[in-house]
């Protein structure tokens, strides 16, 4: 972004002797107008020497000057009038002749046509190059230039291109690659296949009920076993490389601020007014030059409360509010796509409102991308919980997350398997993410889908040794809502990528395809099938009935015994693994209670299945800010886990 150039303006003041004064600099002008204290200017100049960033950007991002004042001053220095786009909006007809992406790219907004030429507004220094660029982009000479802020340009674009931005955010992927969008829950061939399977089962039950039930039982049990073995192998591989860190602390320390790229942070929020304050505090802790950060707070249009809270928090100038147009589907990925549309950073990351990322996370991501090849599209940081010890649910959730992010994902990465991304802390090179099509707003685990899509498109997904601390669900109902969404999303993802299994195998290979099915399809299937197995076992154990004997011929019996005795034990054992990397030793005995936790998973899985048919795109909102520990922990989130 060229917007904030602290340079001389085109108009130079004259001294009393008639000689021109040396051109006034931005800092001096702000100090002269009483908008900036001299000591703040000195400090900002020192920062500028380190980061080589523009002074205006430094002042804005550090909250030393108001955006309006800065651009007013810049307008004067540039010798052009300032325009308030709210009061003087551009000509809609003219604006719609151009693509909004083009305007965003150049930060030049065509205002209106005059007989002499175009009138434009810009947040950049209006030098000859800019005029030439404007003439080239908009097809005519520039007659008049006016200064504005980049904030106003964004807001104007969203106002005038609301439909386009919304359509792109919502249907962009669907229009470009309909086969990769969850907009269609079941394709015709899938519907036909499921109908055929259902009819075949019914027919089998009518003609050969015993054989049919044996086959079903066998299928479920074999799948369950394969899933257990797969998870065991992957997590052992993850554990094997536990101590091999791809990014060293010394490398992070050696990074120079001036070398760092611009980073966009997307924070989708909805009805989360209560955590806005802590969100801004947590983002402030990031060890990254604020002037190189662009924080886009994605607030839903109907969520006035959060917007007001955000305004009241008086965030620094690098925080920008983007109001997401209120339209179905009202999902996080849709908001993120709008954010992606406006993102101007070289890299981009998503955080949830209650997230507490490790301060050096962005730098580690930058290093990971530098080390990774050109196909590396995303690096995922580990997620964990700051309120791990709040109650039973948070303990189990922490064990599960620690296992998943500390062992399972690194294992998948090492084995070159598709990685379903976690909900937040995914870092992308912005352009490559756009190339991939952004998130699927119809998929309620858009992150997992994106990870798989990236692999299918030939990209790579990696992991970085950094953690973002979140708030673990403390209430069962809230947990089930969240989990049912995740499981429904996994179902959607499995359905989307299984539309053409042969093509999937061709593109990512048989091994990865199997890995994908065992992980993404396997997770919901395991939780859906488990209650039936528990029920059968309980019925048999209580009544010692022989009614089930015919349905357990030797091979099925052996596999089901393996699942009962070894599979469940491995499930518990692997969860014990979770506590080691982070030293959560006191949580390890809780792994023994996993079977209770699995019951909750199964409840959520059935809810997800029901919603897949009734409300496939419905976003089960997780309520945040419920933790008692929210107010207690400031600074280091691991304090809560001590």
């Amino acid at each position, binding site marked *: 972004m060229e917007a904030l150039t602290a340079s001389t303006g085109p108009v130079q003041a004259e001294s009393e002797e008639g000689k021109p004064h040396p051109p006034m600099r931005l800092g001096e002008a702000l100090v002269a107008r009483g908008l900036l204290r001299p000591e703040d200017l000195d400090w900002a100049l020192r920062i500028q020497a380190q980061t080589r960033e523009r002074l205006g950007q430094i002042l804005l991002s550090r909250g030393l000057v108001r955006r309006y004042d800065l651009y007013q001053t810049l307008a004067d220095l540039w010798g052009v009038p300032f325009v308030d786009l709210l009061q003087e909006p551009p000509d809609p007809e003219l604006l719609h002749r151009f693509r909004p992406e083009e305007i965003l790219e150049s930060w030049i907004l065509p205002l209106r046509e005059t007989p002499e030429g175009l009138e434009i507004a810009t947040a950049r220094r209006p030098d000859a190059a800019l005029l030439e660029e404007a003439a080239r982009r908009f097809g005519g000479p520039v007659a008049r230039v006016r200064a504005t802020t980049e904030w106003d340009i964004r807001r104007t674009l969203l106002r005038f291109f609301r439909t386009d931005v919304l359509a792109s955010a919502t249907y962009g992927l669907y229009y470009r690659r309909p086969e990769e969008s969850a907009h269609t829950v079941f394709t015709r061939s899938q519907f036909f296949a499921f109908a055929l399977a259902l009819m075949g089962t019914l027919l089998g039950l009518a003609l050969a009920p015993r054989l049919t039930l044996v086959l079903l039982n066998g299928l479920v049990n074999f799948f369950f076993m394969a899933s257990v073995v797969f998870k065991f192998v992957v997590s*052992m591989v993850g*554990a*094997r490389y*536990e*101590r091999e860190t791809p990014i060293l602390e010394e490398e992070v320390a050696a990074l120079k601020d001036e070398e760092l790229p611009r980073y966009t942070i997307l924070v989708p929020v909805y009805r989360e007014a209560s955590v806005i304050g802590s969100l801004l505090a947590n983002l402030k802790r990031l060890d990254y030059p604020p002037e190189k950060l662009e924080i886009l707070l994605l607030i839903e249009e109907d969520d006035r409360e959060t917007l007001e809270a955000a305004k009241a928090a008086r965030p620094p100038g690098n925080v920008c509010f983007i109001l997401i147009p209120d339209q179905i589907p009202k999902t996080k990925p849709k908001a993120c796509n709008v954010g992606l549309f406006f993102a101007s950073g070289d890299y981009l990351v998503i955080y949830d409102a209650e997230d507490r990322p490790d301060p050096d996370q962005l730098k580690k991501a930058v290093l990971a991308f530098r080390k990774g090849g050109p196909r590396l599209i995303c690096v995922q940081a580990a997620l964990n919980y700051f309120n791990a010890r709040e109650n039973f649910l948070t303990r189990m959730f922490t064990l599960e997350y620690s296992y998943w992010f500390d062992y399972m994902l690194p294992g998948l990465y090492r084995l070159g398997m598709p990685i379903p991304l976690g909900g937040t802390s995914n870092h992308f090179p912005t352009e490559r993410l756009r190339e991939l099509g952004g998130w699927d707003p119809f998929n309620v685990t858009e992150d997992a889908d994106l990870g798989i899509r990236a692999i299918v498109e030939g990209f790579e997904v990696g992991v970085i040794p950094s953690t973002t601390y979140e708030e673990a669900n403390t209430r069962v109902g809230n947990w089930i809502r969240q989990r049912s969404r995740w499981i429904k999303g996994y179902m959607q993802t499995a359905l989307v990528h299984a539309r053409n299994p042969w093509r999937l195998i061709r593109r990512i290979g048989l091994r990865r395809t199997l890995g994908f099915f065992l992980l993404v399809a396997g997770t919901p299937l395991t939780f859906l099938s488990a209650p039936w197995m528990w029920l059968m076992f309980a019925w048999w154990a209580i009544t010692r009935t022989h009614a089930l004997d015919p349905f357990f011929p*030797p091979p099925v*019996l*052996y596999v089901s*015994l393996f699942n009962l*005795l*070894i599979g469940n*034990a491995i499930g*518990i*054992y692997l969860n*014990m*693994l979770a*506590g*080691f*990397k982070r*030293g959560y*030793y*006191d949580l*390890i*005995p809780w792994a023994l209670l996993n079977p209770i936790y699995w019951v909750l998973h199964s409840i959520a899985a059935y809810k997800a299945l029901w919603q897949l048919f009734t409300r496939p795109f419905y976003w089960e909102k997780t309520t945040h800010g419920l933790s008692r520990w929210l107010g207690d922990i400031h600074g280091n989130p691991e304090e809560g886990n001590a």
Partner: protein
Amino acid sequence: MSLSTWKQATAFRRIVWEGIAISGLSLPFLIVGAASLSSGFLSHEHAHLIEKALLVRDRGRLEWIGFAYPPLPVLTLLPWPTPLAAMILASVSGGLLAWNVGRRLQFLAFPPWIRAGLLLSFVGMPTILFLATQRFGTTLALVLFLWAWQAYLAFTRHGRTDAGFLAGLIIGFAFYASFYAPAFALAFALAAPLFAHTRDPRHTLAILMVLAFPTAMTIGAWIYLSWLFTEQPLAFLYDPGSSMLIAFRPDEAFITPEAMAHELVQRLLNTPLYLGVGVLIARLQPRRLPAYLIPLLLMVGAWSMGGVFPRELSVALGALFALSGIPVRTPPRWGILVLILALLQLGADGFFIHYGERERWWAALWAEKPSTADTVEEEIAGRLARLPCGSVLADDRQAYRLIARAGTACPFVLPPDPIFQVAVSRPERFVRWIIVAESPRGPIGPLEARYRLRAPPGFVLEASWPGWYLYRRGEP
């Protein structure tokens, strides 16, 4: 050649070389095993395993494994339940064991000829030769113990979490090969705090859980399976036909402290290398000493609880712990001393060979013709093998050697068969022959109790051999 292809080729070459090394190290065991087989010798353990594998195979249902403890060697023998297969598997396990020892020796700064000498002294020990040819189950358990031990060290010393979990899993899994595995698991778990540099009791508890949980689960699973298939959840503890603990008791349960101390001293003298390496560890790595003493503690523990700890197991464990435990920092000049101790151990092991089954095996190895007992067993087995399926009533707690030599369980009606009890009561209605041991080993079963001293009603004595009677149903 691309990098990945090169890596694959290197990995393949490594696997091939390792395969060759393991085969080479298995060769001495195969030669000795073949010599034992040609002399007609069949160990109790192999007979037991083969008989159980035949039972599972011929009845056609894997759940009969519930009658066979330890199940892992039985399952391994299932495709080919013969004395030759048992010998080959034992030899390969022995080769694996030796290869693991050799790999550990490579880390030492000793000259290559000393390392080679140490490895050969291990392979040449009569006890190791015996185990690696006649005790497939025990050798398999030793391989698992050694792997678990190596993983355990990686976990406790280098903090490798995956190794800790693997150690727990391997030692838990080893319960299906040896009854002694839980004791090892417990010992590993209890010794872990000495290794792991932690003073956090929560960390200690976590390590204990990780090392003990798989064993608890494998024992629980086995109890459940035994209950499910035999309705006797703890049968593997007391059933003479199923328990390694009692079936092969080598008359060495020590009750008095004096007897225990005497045996302990004798066994320590039998393993001078273990003693010598113990001194080295005490001097160079004293923190590791408690873990090094695990075999000794287990032995004393087993005796104190009235159990047994076979001499060959203690000798083998001593040799394994010693050769795997020589501190890496041991100065090269001490290598010759260690080698002398190893050669002394080789001699001591040969000198103290005269006890139990090992003595009979040693004698058979050098004998020019098979022993009378083996010839008789072969003769009975050959005769029974030709009889129709389900026609011979027998109790495999006594007749397992005959069934193993017969190479089929088909002709026999055995205790796990549902009709066994009723067939013992009314044999004339169910079987045509009954084979009865004259002097049963261990607890007497219902068959021997009834018909050891008199012929079953309606049956006549068809043939008798030293120790065995074969009755035939009299034709009406």
